[in-house]
């Protein structure tokens, strides 16, 4: 069991939808022009959202 967490800084999110589209497990959605973590249980902590987010608004935190 991983102790990683998927976190957001919504103040910086511009709702471009890049993370939503490149998430392989479709965890994220756009709601009211911001990204939301709609299905956190499906997240596999691959870090694609963090890699592609232009605004540092979504990131993984925690150990291995």
């Amino acid at each position: 069991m991983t102790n990683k967490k998927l976190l957001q800084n919504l103040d910086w999110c511009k709702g471009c939808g890049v993370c939503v589209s490149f998430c392989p497990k479709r965890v994220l959605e756009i709601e009211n022009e911001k990204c939301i973590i709609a299905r956190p249980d499906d997240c596999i902590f691959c870090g694609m959202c963090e890699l592609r987010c232009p605004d540092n608004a979504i990131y993984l935190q925690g150990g291995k």
Partner: protein
Amino acid sequence: MNASEITKKYYRADKLPHIWCPGCGHGTLLNTVVRAIDKLGLNKDDVCIVSGIGCSSRASGYLDFNTLHTTHGRALAFATGIKHANPKLHVIVITGDGDASAIGGNHLIHAARRNIDITTICFNNNIYGMTGGQYSPTTPIGDFATTAPYGNIDKPFDLCNLAQGAGASYVGRGTAYHAQLMQKLIENGIQNKGFSFVEGLSLCPTYYGRKNKKGSAVKMHTFLKDHCVDKKIVDKKPEMAENKIIIGELYNNQKPEYTDNYKVIIDKFHNY
């Protein structure tokens, strides 16, 4: 180090969010620069980020290193001075396609010719974004811009070929989509003792994208994904290069470095 720690350590977080439009590739490319510096374990005080004018050049203001935001096209001229004053600094220039190849075109070719130890990272979005979408020297033939309403007739520069031809010792091309590759190229560029030119293909959904009906930022990312091929693959199968943009490490050839050569002259006088 995880992403939020990297953001806290290397960004001026009080200046965020940055001014770049939603989906702009520059944010992703800037993250690759920061991750590369973190991976190399460079001391923040030993790094100097220099930028000119344009969307890309806003980058220096968001980073917590020694930073210099200079006049249009002159980032490399300022960087040359900094490198001479303190050759131990890792001088990194963040510039755009217009800043590097139009207004600062001469500075680019002469910095490359001298092979001075500066890492130049060019965020190429094929347009002048900040001033309202005028065509730049890298806008492809036939594409539209506010100053090319009937299509651009100028042949675009291949910035990597230009830098290599002018004498750069390390040349690479990554994209905002190929972020891991881009990070690796920047790491290699910083480690290279000489002039390194890394072109990062960015995307401008607001001006270039809208004028040319390229769709959303996501579609433009997908375009980069589908239309780029790594040089390693092209070397084995040249037919793969057809209608594709070649990315990866394009040129790596060690040559004498400028500040080293300059020091030889200075030392000569010390011995008199």
